[in-house]
Protein backbone atom coordinates (compact mmCIF):
# COMPACT_ATOMS: atom_id res chain seq x y z
CA UNK A 1 0.00 0.00 0.00
CA UNK A 2 1.69 3.22 -1.13
CA UNK A 3 1.68 6.20 1.14
CA UNK A 4 -1.25 8.49 0.54
CA UNK A 5 -0.40 11.88 -0.86
CA UNK A 6 -2.66 13.54 1.64
CA UNK A 7 -4.21 12.45 4.88
CA UNK A 8 -2.60 11.21 8.02
CA UNK A 9 -1.01 8.06 9.13
CA UNK A 10 -1.83 7.87 12.82
CA UNK A 11 0.12 5.55 15.04
CA UNK A 12 -1.39 3.08 17.42
CA UNK A 13 -2.66 5.01 20.37
CA UNK A 14 -0.93 4.25 23.63
CA UNK A 15 -3.16 1.75 25.41
CA UNK A 16 -2.64 3.33 28.81
CA UNK A 17 -3.44 6.78 27.47
CA UNK A 18 -6.47 5.67 25.48
CA UNK A 19 -7.82 3.51 28.27
CA UNK A 20 -7.55 6.35 30.71
CA UNK A 21 -4.81 4.77 32.82
CA UNK A 22 -2.48 7.50 31.60
CA UNK A 23 -3.89 10.95 30.87
CA UNK A 24 -2.33 13.77 28.89
CA UNK A 25 -2.09 15.70 32.14
CA UNK A 26 0.17 12.94 33.52
CA UNK A 27 2.92 13.70 31.01
CA UNK A 28 4.56 16.54 32.99
CA UNK A 29 4.94 14.17 35.94
CA UNK A 30 6.60 11.59 33.69
CA UNK A 31 8.96 14.33 32.52
CA UNK A 32 9.92 15.07 36.11
CA UNK A 33 10.59 11.40 36.78
CA UNK A 34 12.78 11.15 33.68
CA UNK A 35 14.67 14.31 34.65
CA UNK A 36 15.36 12.74 38.03
CA UNK A 37 16.79 9.68 36.23
CA UNK A 38 19.07 11.87 34.14
CA UNK A 39 20.50 13.83 37.05
CA UNK A 40 21.14 10.57 38.87
CA UNK A 41 22.70 8.90 35.80
CA UNK A 42 24.99 11.84 35.04
CA UNK A 43 26.23 11.84 38.63
CA UNK A 44 26.67 8.08 38.97
CA UNK A 45 28.28 7.59 35.58
CA UNK A 46 30.32 10.80 35.68
CA UNK A 47 28.76 11.63 32.29
CA UNK A 48 28.57 15.07 30.72
CA UNK A 49 25.83 16.48 28.44
CA UNK A 50 23.27 16.70 31.24
CA UNK A 51 22.04 20.12 30.05
CA UNK A 52 21.47 18.80 26.51
CA UNK A 53 19.71 15.72 27.87
CA UNK A 54 17.37 17.71 30.11
CA UNK A 55 16.31 20.05 27.31
CA UNK A 56 14.80 17.30 25.14
CA UNK A 57 12.97 15.35 27.87
CA UNK A 58 9.51 16.75 27.11
CA UNK A 59 9.97 16.07 23.39
CA UNK A 60 10.62 12.40 24.15
CA UNK A 61 7.81 12.18 26.69
CA UNK A 62 5.32 13.67 24.21
CA UNK A 63 6.59 11.34 21.50
CA UNK A 64 6.63 8.10 23.49
CA UNK A 65 3.81 8.73 25.93
CA UNK A 66 1.63 11.09 23.89
CA UNK A 67 -0.18 8.22 22.21
CA UNK A 68 0.70 8.84 18.57
CA UNK A 69 3.88 6.81 18.12
CA UNK A 70 3.36 3.39 16.61
CA UNK A 71 5.68 1.34 18.77
CA UNK A 72 5.28 -1.74 20.90
CA UNK A 73 7.97 -2.67 23.44
CA UNK A 74 6.76 -6.27 23.15
CA UNK A 75 7.48 -6.22 19.41
CA UNK A 76 10.36 -3.77 19.00
CA UNK A 77 11.36 -5.08 15.56
CA UNK A 78 7.89 -4.85 14.03
CA UNK A 79 8.20 -3.89 10.36
CA UNK A 80 5.41 -1.35 10.62
CA UNK A 81 6.72 0.46 13.71
CA UNK A 82 7.56 4.12 13.65
CA UNK A 83 11.33 4.69 13.82
CA UNK A 84 12.86 7.19 16.25
CA UNK A 85 16.48 8.26 15.76
CA UNK A 86 18.22 10.25 18.46
CA UNK A 87 20.51 12.17 16.14
CA UNK A 88 21.87 14.30 18.99
CA UNK A 89 23.43 11.15 20.40
CA UNK A 90 25.04 13.00 23.30
CA UNK A 91 21.57 13.05 24.90
CA UNK A 92 21.62 9.25 25.11
CA UNK A 93 20.57 9.36 28.78
CA UNK A 94 17.19 10.73 27.73
CA UNK A 95 16.70 8.00 25.13
CA UNK A 96 17.69 5.24 27.56
CA UNK A 97 15.50 6.62 30.28
CA UNK A 98 12.40 6.94 28.08
CA UNK A 99 12.91 3.47 26.56
CA UNK A 100 13.21 1.95 30.03
CA UNK A 101 10.20 3.94 31.18
CA UNK A 102 8.23 2.64 28.22
CA UNK A 103 9.22 -0.94 28.99
CA UNK A 104 11.73 -1.68 26.21
CA UNK A 105 14.16 -2.98 28.82
CA UNK A 106 14.27 -3.18 32.64
CA UNK A 107 14.75 0.13 34.37
CA UNK A 108 17.53 -1.38 36.50
CA UNK A 109 19.75 -1.28 33.42
CA UNK A 110 19.91 2.52 33.67
CA UNK A 111 22.26 2.08 36.61
CA UNK A 112 24.81 0.47 34.29
CA UNK A 113 24.96 3.58 32.07
CA UNK A 114 28.52 4.30 30.96
CA UNK A 115 29.96 1.54 33.15
CA UNK A 116 32.62 -0.80 31.74
CA UNK A 117 30.98 -3.45 29.57
CA UNK A 118 27.56 -1.78 29.63
CA UNK A 119 25.33 -1.72 26.56
CA UNK A 120 24.21 1.75 27.64
CA UNK A 121 27.18 3.54 26.15
CA UNK A 122 27.73 7.29 26.33
CA UNK A 123 26.61 7.52 22.70
CA UNK A 124 23.97 4.99 21.63
CA UNK A 125 24.62 1.95 19.45
CA UNK A 126 22.07 0.55 17.02
CA UNK A 127 20.60 -2.68 18.24
CA UNK A 128 22.50 -2.67 21.56
CA UNK A 129 19.10 -2.59 23.22
CA UNK A 130 15.57 -2.79 21.78
CA UNK A 131 14.36 0.58 20.56
CA UNK A 132 17.75 1.97 19.50
CA UNK A 133 17.29 2.35 15.76
CA UNK A 134 20.62 3.88 14.72
CA UNK A 135 24.08 4.58 16.05
CA UNK A 136 24.64 8.25 16.77
CA UNK A 137 27.05 10.60 18.45
CA UNK A 138 28.58 12.25 15.42
CA UNK A 139 26.22 15.07 14.50
CA UNK A 140 24.56 15.38 11.12
CA UNK A 141 24.13 11.66 10.55
CA UNK A 142 20.63 11.04 11.89
CA UNK A 143 18.65 12.93 9.27
CA UNK A 144 20.35 11.29 6.25
CA UNK A 145 19.92 7.87 7.91
CA UNK A 146 16.29 8.71 8.62
CA UNK A 147 15.83 9.75 5.00
CA UNK A 148 17.12 6.33 3.91
CA UNK A 149 14.68 4.65 6.30
CA UNK A 150 11.84 6.78 4.98
CA UNK A 151 12.68 5.84 1.37
CA UNK A 152 12.82 2.17 2.41
CA UNK A 153 9.36 2.52 3.96
CA UNK A 154 8.01 3.78 0.66
CA UNK A 155 9.72 0.98 -1.30
CA UNK A 156 8.32 -1.63 1.07
CA UNK A 157 4.86 -0.02 1.09
CA UNK A 158 4.99 0.27 4.88
CA UNK A 159 3.18 3.26 6.36
CA UNK A 160 5.65 4.01 9.13
CA UNK A 161 7.09 7.39 9.99
CA UNK A 162 10.66 8.25 10.87
CA UNK A 163 11.26 10.76 13.67
CA UNK A 164 14.71 12.33 13.89
CA UNK A 165 15.54 14.26 17.04
CA UNK A 166 18.23 16.84 16.32
CA UNK A 167 19.80 19.74 18.15
CA UNK A 168 20.00 23.32 16.92
CA UNK A 169 23.80 23.17 16.99
CA UNK A 170 23.59 20.11 14.78
CA UNK A 171 22.14 22.32 12.04
CA UNK A 172 25.74 23.56 11.58
CA UNK A 173 26.48 20.31 9.75
CA UNK A 174 26.31 20.45 5.95
CA UNK A 175 24.97 16.92 5.73
CA UNK A 176 21.77 18.09 7.48
CA UNK A 177 21.09 20.45 4.61
CA UNK A 178 22.06 17.89 1.97
CA UNK A 179 19.36 15.61 3.34
CA UNK A 180 16.99 18.52 3.85
CA UNK A 181 17.26 19.34 0.13
CA UNK A 182 16.89 15.78 -1.11
CA UNK A 183 13.88 14.72 0.99
CA UNK A 184 11.36 17.11 -0.61
CA UNK A 185 12.80 16.34 -4.08
CA UNK A 186 11.98 12.69 -3.37
CA UNK A 187 8.51 13.75 -2.18
CA UNK A 188 9.08 12.16 1.19
CA UNK A 189 6.23 12.68 3.65
CA UNK A 190 6.95 10.10 6.33
CA UNK A 191 9.98 11.92 7.70
CA UNK A 192 9.79 14.20 10.73
CA UNK A 193 12.58 16.26 12.25
CA UNK A 194 12.15 17.59 15.77
CA UNK A 195 14.75 20.19 16.66
CA UNK A 196 15.57 20.64 20.33
CA UNK A 197 16.23 24.37 19.95
CA UNK A 198 17.85 25.13 23.30
CA UNK A 199 19.88 28.02 21.83
CA UNK A 200 23.23 26.66 22.98
CA UNK A 201 25.90 24.58 21.33
CA UNK A 202 29.03 23.35 23.07
CA UNK A 203 30.79 26.69 23.37
CA UNK A 204 28.35 29.40 22.41
CA UNK A 205 24.88 30.62 21.48
CA UNK A 206 23.75 28.68 18.43
CA UNK A 207 22.38 31.78 16.69
CA UNK A 208 25.74 33.52 17.15
CA UNK A 209 28.19 30.74 16.22
CA UNK A 210 26.50 30.42 12.85
CA UNK A 211 23.71 32.36 11.17
CA UNK A 212 21.07 29.87 12.32
CA UNK A 213 18.09 32.19 12.25
CA UNK A 214 15.55 32.43 10.84
CA UNK A 215 15.47 28.65 11.30
CA UNK A 216 11.82 28.03 10.44
CA UNK A 217 12.12 29.99 7.22
CA UNK A 218 15.31 28.10 6.34
CA UNK A 219 13.52 24.77 6.52
CA UNK A 220 10.49 26.13 4.67
CA UNK A 221 12.69 27.44 1.89
CA UNK A 222 14.17 23.94 1.61
CA UNK A 223 10.68 22.57 0.94
CA UNK A 224 9.64 21.42 4.40
CA UNK A 225 6.47 21.97 6.31
CA UNK A 226 7.73 23.77 9.42
CA UNK A 227 6.12 24.37 12.82
CA UNK A 228 7.28 26.07 15.99
CA UNK A 229 6.20 24.93 19.39
CA UNK A 230 7.06 25.35 23.07
CA UNK A 231 9.33 22.36 23.50
CA UNK A 232 8.36 21.92 27.13
CA UNK A 233 4.61 21.93 26.54
CA UNK A 234 3.89 18.22 26.17
CA UNK A 235 0.30 18.91 25.18
CA UNK A 236 1.31 21.24 22.35
CA UNK A 237 4.05 18.84 21.25
CA UNK A 238 1.62 15.90 21.24
CA UNK A 239 -0.83 17.90 19.19
CA UNK A 240 1.82 18.60 16.53
CA UNK A 241 2.99 14.98 16.51
CA UNK A 242 -0.58 13.78 16.04
CA UNK A 243 -0.84 15.57 12.71
CA UNK A 244 1.96 13.94 10.74
CA UNK A 245 1.99 13.66 7.75
CA UNK A 246 0.27 17.01 7.81
CA UNK A 247 -1.40 16.81 4.41
CA UNK A 248 1.06 19.21 2.80
CA UNK A 249 2.83 16.44 0.88
CA UNK A 250 6.10 17.60 2.45
CA UNK A 251 8.41 16.28 5.14
CA UNK A 252 7.79 17.96 8.49
CA UNK A 253 10.08 19.81 10.85
CA UNK A 254 8.97 20.77 14.36
CA UNK A 255 11.17 23.42 15.91
CA UNK A 256 10.78 22.90 19.64
CA UNK A 257 11.89 25.93 21.66
CA UNK A 258 13.55 24.62 24.78
CA UNK A 259 15.77 25.63 27.67
CA UNK A 260 19.05 23.84 28.17
CA UNK A 261 19.11 22.20 31.60
CA UNK A 262 15.30 22.56 31.88
CA UNK A 263 13.73 21.55 35.16
CA UNK A 264 16.61 22.33 37.50
CA UNK A 265 16.80 26.05 38.28
CA UNK A 266 20.57 26.21 38.76
CA UNK A 267 21.18 24.41 35.46
CA UNK A 268 18.66 26.22 33.28
CA UNK A 269 20.20 28.14 30.38
CA UNK A 270 23.66 27.76 31.92
CA UNK A 271 25.91 26.24 29.25
CA UNK A 272 28.44 25.06 31.84
CA UNK A 273 26.12 22.10 32.23
CA UNK A 274 27.05 20.94 28.75
CA UNK A 275 30.14 19.44 30.40
CA UNK A 276 29.57 19.70 34.16
CA UNK A 277 28.58 16.68 36.23
CA UNK A 278 26.42 17.27 39.34
CA UNK A 279 27.87 16.40 42.74
CA UNK A 280 25.91 14.64 45.46
CA UNK A 281 24.52 17.84 46.92
CA UNK A 282 23.47 19.11 43.51
CA UNK A 283 21.70 15.83 42.79
CA UNK A 284 19.74 16.22 46.03
CA UNK A 285 18.83 19.85 45.29
CA UNK A 286 17.79 18.95 41.74
CA UNK A 287 15.59 16.11 42.92
CA UNK A 288 14.02 18.36 45.55
CA UNK A 289 13.14 20.91 42.88
CA UNK A 290 11.65 18.18 40.73
CA UNK A 291 9.51 17.09 43.63
CA UNK A 292 11.14 13.69 43.74
CA UNK A 293 12.33 13.85 47.36
Amino acid sequence: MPLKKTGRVIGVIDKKLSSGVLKATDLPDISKRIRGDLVEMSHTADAMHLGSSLSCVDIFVALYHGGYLNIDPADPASLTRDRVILSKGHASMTLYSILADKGFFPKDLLRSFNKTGSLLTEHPNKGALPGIEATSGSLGHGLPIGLGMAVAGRLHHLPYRVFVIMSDGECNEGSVWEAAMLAPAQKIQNLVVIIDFNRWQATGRSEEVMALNPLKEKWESFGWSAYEVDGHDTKALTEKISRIPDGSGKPVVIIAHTVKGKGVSFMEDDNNWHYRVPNEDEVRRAKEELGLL
Partner: protein
Amino acid sequence: MRSAFAQELASLASTDDRIIILSGDIGNQMFDEFQEKFPSRYINCGIAEANMVSMAAGLAICGMRPFIYTFTAFDTTRCFEQIRVDLCYQNLPVVIIGLGAGLTYAPLGPTHYICEDIAHMRSLPNMTVLCPGDAIEVRCSLRETLKQDGPVYIRIAKKNEPVVHKEIPDFQIGKAMCLTTGNDACIITTGSILPEVLKAHELLKEKLISSQVVHFPTVKPLDLTMLSSIFSKYDLVVTLEEHSLIGGLGSAVAEWYVDNSARHVKIVRLGTRDEFIYSSISQKEARDYYGLSPKKIAKAVEKQYTYRGRIS
Protein backbone atom coordinates in the same frame (compact mmCIF):
# COMPACT_ATOMS: atom_id res chain seq x y z
CA MET B 1 34.25 -1.51 -16.34
CA ARG B 2 31.46 0.98 -15.62
CA SER B 3 29.24 -0.47 -18.36
CA ALA B 4 29.85 -3.94 -16.95
CA PHE B 5 28.84 -2.59 -13.56
CA ALA B 6 25.61 -1.03 -14.84
CA GLN B 7 24.63 -4.09 -16.92
CA GLU B 8 25.44 -6.60 -14.20
CA LEU B 9 23.59 -4.66 -11.54
CA ALA B 10 20.50 -4.36 -13.76
CA SER B 11 20.64 -8.10 -14.24
CA LEU B 12 21.07 -8.83 -10.53
CA ALA B 13 18.32 -6.37 -9.59
CA SER B 14 15.77 -8.30 -11.64
CA THR B 15 15.99 -11.19 -9.18
CA ASP B 16 16.98 -9.27 -6.05
CA ASP B 17 14.56 -6.51 -5.12
CA ARG B 18 16.80 -5.33 -2.28
CA ILE B 19 19.17 -3.69 -4.76
CA ILE B 20 18.96 0.09 -5.04
CA ILE B 21 21.40 2.49 -6.73
CA LEU B 22 22.28 5.82 -5.16
CA SER B 23 24.14 7.97 -7.65
CA GLY B 24 26.06 11.15 -6.94
CA ASP B 25 24.77 12.90 -10.05
CA ILE B 26 26.96 11.01 -12.49
CA GLY B 27 26.41 8.17 -14.96
CA ASN B 28 24.33 10.03 -17.54
CA GLN B 29 22.53 7.42 -19.72
CA MET B 30 24.53 4.63 -18.10
CA PHE B 31 21.66 3.66 -15.83
CA ASP B 32 18.90 4.11 -18.44
CA GLU B 33 18.14 0.38 -18.50
CA PHE B 34 18.16 0.14 -14.71
CA GLN B 35 15.97 3.22 -14.32
CA GLU B 36 13.51 2.01 -16.91
CA LYS B 37 13.16 -1.37 -15.23
CA PHE B 38 13.32 -0.23 -11.61
CA PRO B 39 12.42 3.48 -11.46
CA SER B 40 11.88 3.50 -7.70
CA ARG B 41 15.23 1.80 -7.06
CA TYR B 42 17.43 4.44 -8.66
CA ILE B 43 17.93 7.69 -6.78
CA ASN B 44 20.07 10.54 -7.98
CA CYS B 45 21.18 11.91 -4.61
CA GLY B 46 22.69 15.01 -6.18
CA ILE B 47 26.16 16.30 -5.48
CA ALA B 48 25.88 15.51 -1.78
CA GLU B 49 27.97 12.47 -0.92
CA ALA B 50 27.86 12.69 2.88
CA ASN B 51 24.08 12.45 2.80
CA MET B 52 24.22 9.71 0.17
CA VAL B 53 26.38 7.46 2.37
CA SER B 54 24.29 7.90 5.52
CA MET B 55 21.10 7.51 3.52
CA ALA B 56 22.44 4.19 2.22
CA ALA B 57 22.95 3.18 5.85
CA GLY B 58 19.30 3.96 6.61
CA LEU B 59 18.19 1.92 3.61
CA ALA B 60 20.41 -1.00 4.63
CA ILE B 61 19.07 -0.93 8.21
CA CYS B 62 15.64 -1.43 6.63
CA GLY B 63 16.73 -4.43 4.58
CA MET B 64 17.85 -2.88 1.28
CA ARG B 65 21.18 -3.49 -0.49
CA PRO B 66 22.30 -0.02 -1.58
CA PHE B 67 25.04 0.55 -4.17
CA ILE B 68 26.58 4.02 -3.98
CA TYR B 69 28.04 5.25 -7.24
CA THR B 70 30.24 8.22 -8.01
CA PHE B 71 33.89 9.17 -8.58
CA THR B 72 36.01 7.38 -6.03
CA ALA B 73 37.52 10.66 -4.82
CA PHE B 74 34.02 11.73 -3.79
CA ASP B 75 32.55 8.57 -2.29
CA THR B 76 35.59 7.58 -0.24
CA THR B 77 37.74 10.39 1.12
CA ARG B 78 35.15 13.17 0.91
CA CYS B 79 32.66 11.32 3.10
CA PHE B 80 35.12 9.18 5.04
CA GLU B 81 33.54 9.85 8.42
CA GLN B 82 30.08 8.82 7.22
CA ILE B 83 31.59 5.59 5.84
CA ARG B 84 33.43 4.96 9.09
CA VAL B 85 30.53 5.56 11.45
CA ASP B 86 27.41 4.72 9.50
CA LEU B 87 28.61 1.85 7.30
CA CYS B 88 31.55 0.30 9.16
CA TYR B 89 30.68 0.90 12.82
CA GLN B 90 27.10 -0.20 12.18
CA ASN B 91 28.47 -2.96 9.89
CA LEU B 92 25.88 -2.56 7.15
CA PRO B 93 25.77 -4.23 3.73
CA VAL B 94 26.33 -1.13 1.63
CA VAL B 95 28.51 -1.28 -1.49
CA ILE B 96 30.57 1.76 -2.45
CA ILE B 97 31.48 1.79 -6.13
CA GLY B 98 34.42 4.10 -6.71
CA LEU B 99 34.77 5.15 -10.33
CA GLY B 100 38.20 6.21 -11.59
CA ALA B 101 40.70 3.89 -9.94
CA GLY B 102 44.12 5.40 -9.33
CA LEU B 103 45.29 7.57 -12.20
CA THR B 104 42.25 6.90 -14.44
CA TYR B 105 41.22 10.54 -14.17
CA ALA B 106 44.75 11.97 -14.13
CA PRO B 107 43.75 14.38 -16.94
CA LEU B 108 41.22 15.96 -14.56
CA GLY B 109 43.86 16.53 -11.90
CA PRO B 110 44.16 15.50 -8.23
CA THR B 111 40.62 16.68 -7.46
CA HIS B 112 39.40 13.73 -9.55
CA TYR B 113 42.17 11.13 -9.62
CA ILE B 114 42.97 9.50 -6.32
CA CYS B 115 45.75 7.24 -5.10
CA GLU B 116 44.92 7.25 -1.39
CA ASP B 117 41.52 5.55 -1.34
CA ILE B 118 42.70 1.98 -0.67
CA ALA B 119 44.69 3.21 2.31
CA HIS B 120 41.62 4.93 3.73
CA MET B 121 39.18 2.11 3.12
CA ARG B 122 41.59 -0.60 4.23
CA SER B 123 42.04 1.06 7.61
CA LEU B 124 38.37 0.73 8.53
CA PRO B 125 37.15 -2.20 10.67
CA ASN B 126 34.50 -4.37 8.93
CA MET B 127 35.33 -2.99 5.46
CA THR B 128 36.08 -5.30 2.53
CA VAL B 129 38.20 -3.78 -0.27
CA LEU B 130 37.95 -5.08 -3.84
CA CYS B 131 39.93 -3.90 -6.86
CA PRO B 132 38.77 -5.94 -9.87
CA GLY B 133 41.28 -6.31 -12.69
CA ASP B 134 38.90 -6.19 -15.63
CA ALA B 135 35.22 -5.95 -16.56
CA ILE B 136 34.65 -9.65 -15.93
CA GLU B 137 36.01 -9.32 -12.41
CA VAL B 138 33.71 -6.32 -11.90
CA ARG B 139 30.74 -8.57 -12.63
CA CYS B 140 32.13 -11.29 -10.36
CA SER B 141 32.72 -8.73 -7.59
CA LEU B 142 29.11 -7.58 -7.69
CA ARG B 143 27.77 -11.12 -7.51
CA GLU B 144 30.05 -12.07 -4.62
CA THR B 145 29.36 -8.82 -2.80
CA LEU B 146 25.69 -9.71 -2.43
CA LYS B 147 26.77 -12.67 -0.31
CA GLN B 148 28.56 -10.33 2.13
CA ASP B 149 26.90 -8.95 5.24
CA GLY B 150 29.11 -5.89 5.80
CA PRO B 151 30.29 -2.87 3.81
CA VAL B 152 32.31 -3.36 0.62
CA TYR B 153 34.35 -0.90 -1.40
CA ILE B 154 34.79 -1.75 -5.09
CA ARG B 155 37.36 0.32 -6.99
CA ILE B 156 36.74 0.33 -10.74
CA ALA B 157 38.38 2.22 -13.62
CA LYS B 158 36.27 3.78 -16.41
CA LYS B 159 35.52 2.29 -19.81
CA ASN B 160 37.12 0.20 -22.56
CA GLU B 161 39.83 -1.31 -20.38
CA PRO B 162 41.39 -4.48 -21.86
CA VAL B 163 39.69 -7.69 -20.75
CA VAL B 164 42.15 -10.06 -19.12
CA HIS B 165 40.04 -13.13 -18.53
CA LYS B 166 39.05 -15.27 -21.50
CA GLU B 167 36.54 -17.11 -19.37
CA ILE B 168 34.83 -16.51 -16.04
CA PRO B 169 37.49 -17.02 -13.35
CA ASP B 170 37.03 -18.72 -10.01
CA PHE B 171 36.47 -15.44 -8.22
CA GLN B 172 35.99 -15.41 -4.48
CA ILE B 173 36.31 -12.53 -2.07
CA GLY B 174 39.56 -12.99 -0.14
CA LYS B 175 41.16 -15.21 -2.79
CA ALA B 176 44.04 -14.22 -5.05
CA MET B 177 44.62 -15.75 -8.48
CA CYS B 178 47.83 -16.76 -10.30
CA LEU B 179 47.70 -15.52 -13.86
CA THR B 180 51.15 -16.53 -15.13
CA THR B 181 53.82 -18.92 -14.01
CA GLY B 182 57.45 -18.03 -13.40
CA ASN B 183 60.30 -18.84 -11.06
CA ASP B 184 62.53 -15.78 -10.87
CA ALA B 185 60.21 -13.28 -9.25
CA CYS B 186 56.63 -12.93 -8.13
CA ILE B 187 54.66 -9.81 -8.99
CA ILE B 188 51.71 -9.18 -6.72
CA THR B 189 49.25 -6.67 -8.07
CA THR B 190 45.69 -5.40 -7.75
CA GLY B 191 43.10 -3.59 -9.83
CA SER B 192 42.78 -2.21 -13.30
CA ILE B 193 46.51 -1.86 -13.89
CA LEU B 194 46.57 -5.66 -14.31
CA PRO B 195 46.83 -5.60 -18.14
CA GLU B 196 49.96 -3.41 -17.87
CA VAL B 197 51.50 -5.86 -15.43
CA LEU B 198 50.87 -8.71 -17.83
CA LYS B 199 52.63 -6.69 -20.55
CA ALA B 200 55.57 -6.21 -18.18
CA HIS B 201 55.60 -9.96 -17.63
CA GLU B 202 56.02 -10.43 -21.38
CA LEU B 203 58.83 -7.85 -21.55
CA LEU B 204 60.62 -9.66 -18.73
CA LYS B 205 60.30 -12.90 -20.60
CA GLU B 206 62.25 -11.34 -23.44
CA LYS B 207 65.01 -10.64 -20.90
CA LEU B 208 64.84 -14.29 -19.85
CA ILE B 209 63.33 -13.43 -16.47
CA SER B 210 60.32 -15.54 -15.67
CA SER B 211 57.80 -13.90 -13.36
CA GLN B 212 54.67 -15.13 -11.74
CA VAL B 213 51.88 -12.57 -11.77
CA VAL B 214 49.41 -12.98 -8.91
CA HIS B 215 46.33 -10.82 -8.90
CA PHE B 216 44.81 -9.85 -5.56
CA PRO B 217 41.36 -8.50 -6.45
CA THR B 218 40.69 -8.46 -2.71
CA VAL B 219 43.06 -6.15 -0.86
CA LYS B 220 41.16 -6.68 2.39
CA PRO B 221 40.96 -9.34 3.66
CA LEU B 222 44.26 -10.46 2.11
CA ASP B 223 44.63 -14.02 0.87
CA LEU B 224 47.08 -15.12 3.56
CA THR B 225 47.40 -18.67 2.24
CA MET B 226 48.55 -17.31 -1.09
CA LEU B 227 50.98 -14.90 0.60
CA SER B 228 52.51 -17.73 2.64
CA SER B 229 52.94 -19.78 -0.48
CA ILE B 230 54.53 -16.87 -2.41
CA PHE B 231 56.92 -15.92 0.39
CA SER B 232 58.04 -19.49 0.89
CA LYS B 233 58.91 -19.89 -2.78
CA TYR B 234 60.29 -16.59 -4.10
CA ASP B 235 63.33 -14.57 -3.03
CA LEU B 236 62.10 -11.53 -4.90
CA VAL B 237 58.53 -10.28 -4.49
CA VAL B 238 57.35 -7.15 -6.26
CA THR B 239 54.12 -5.42 -5.27
CA LEU B 240 52.54 -3.18 -7.84
CA GLU B 241 49.50 -0.94 -7.67
CA GLU B 242 48.06 2.21 -9.16
CA HIS B 243 47.94 3.69 -5.67
CA SER B 244 50.18 5.45 -3.22
CA LEU B 245 53.07 3.55 -1.69
CA ILE B 246 51.55 4.65 1.61
CA GLY B 247 48.82 2.34 2.79
CA GLY B 248 47.91 0.29 -0.26
CA LEU B 249 48.50 -3.32 -1.30
CA GLY B 250 52.28 -2.99 -0.98
CA SER B 251 51.91 -1.71 2.56
CA ALA B 252 49.48 -4.52 3.41
CA VAL B 253 51.89 -7.14 2.07
CA ALA B 254 54.87 -5.56 3.85
CA GLU B 255 52.89 -5.44 7.12
CA TRP B 256 52.05 -9.12 6.74
CA TYR B 257 55.68 -9.95 5.88
CA VAL B 258 57.06 -8.16 8.95
CA ASP B 259 54.62 -9.94 11.22
CA ASN B 260 54.67 -13.39 9.66
CA SER B 261 57.37 -14.34 7.20
CA ALA B 262 60.10 -16.63 8.55
CA ARG B 263 62.61 -16.23 5.74
CA HIS B 264 64.38 -13.29 4.14
CA VAL B 265 62.67 -12.15 0.96
CA LYS B 266 63.46 -8.98 -0.95
CA ILE B 267 60.29 -6.91 -1.38
CA VAL B 268 60.14 -4.16 -3.97
CA ARG B 269 57.07 -1.95 -3.78
CA LEU B 270 55.95 -0.11 -6.91
CA GLY B 271 53.20 2.50 -6.75
CA THR B 272 52.68 6.23 -6.85
CA ARG B 273 55.07 8.45 -4.92
CA ASP B 274 53.98 10.75 -2.11
CA GLU B 275 53.25 13.71 -4.38
CA PHE B 276 50.46 15.28 -6.46
CA ILE B 277 50.74 16.03 -10.16
CA TYR B 278 50.21 19.74 -10.82
CA SER B 279 50.30 19.80 -14.62
CA SER B 280 48.04 18.41 -17.36
CA ILE B 281 48.78 14.79 -18.03
CA SER B 282 47.15 11.68 -19.53
CA GLN B 283 46.67 8.47 -17.56
CA LYS B 284 49.30 6.74 -19.67
CA GLU B 285 51.81 9.51 -19.06
CA ALA B 286 50.96 9.64 -15.35
CA ARG B 287 51.51 5.91 -15.01
CA ASP B 288 54.86 6.31 -16.73
CA TYR B 289 55.71 9.29 -14.50
CA TYR B 290 55.23 7.12 -11.43
CA GLY B 291 57.13 4.18 -12.95
CA LEU B 292 54.03 2.11 -13.62
CA SER B 293 54.28 1.66 -17.42
CA PRO B 294 55.05 -1.89 -18.61
CA LYS B 295 58.56 -0.81 -19.62
CA LYS B 296 59.36 0.80 -16.27
CA ILE B 297 57.81 -2.05 -14.30
CA ALA B 298 59.93 -4.55 -16.26
CA LYS B 299 63.00 -2.38 -15.77
CA ALA B 300 62.48 -2.19 -12.01
CA VAL B 301 62.06 -5.95 -11.72
CA GLU B 302 65.02 -6.61 -13.98
CA LYS B 303 67.24 -4.25 -11.99
CA GLN B 304 66.43 -5.99 -8.72
CA TYR B 305 66.75 -9.41 -10.24
CA THR B 306 70.13 -8.67 -11.81
CA TYR B 307 71.41 -6.96 -8.69
CA ARG B 308 70.39 -9.87 -6.52
CA GLY B 309 71.84 -12.33 -9.03
CA ARG B 310 75.19 -10.52 -8.92
CA ILE B 311 75.51 -10.50 -5.13
CA SER B 312 74.32 -14.04 -4.62
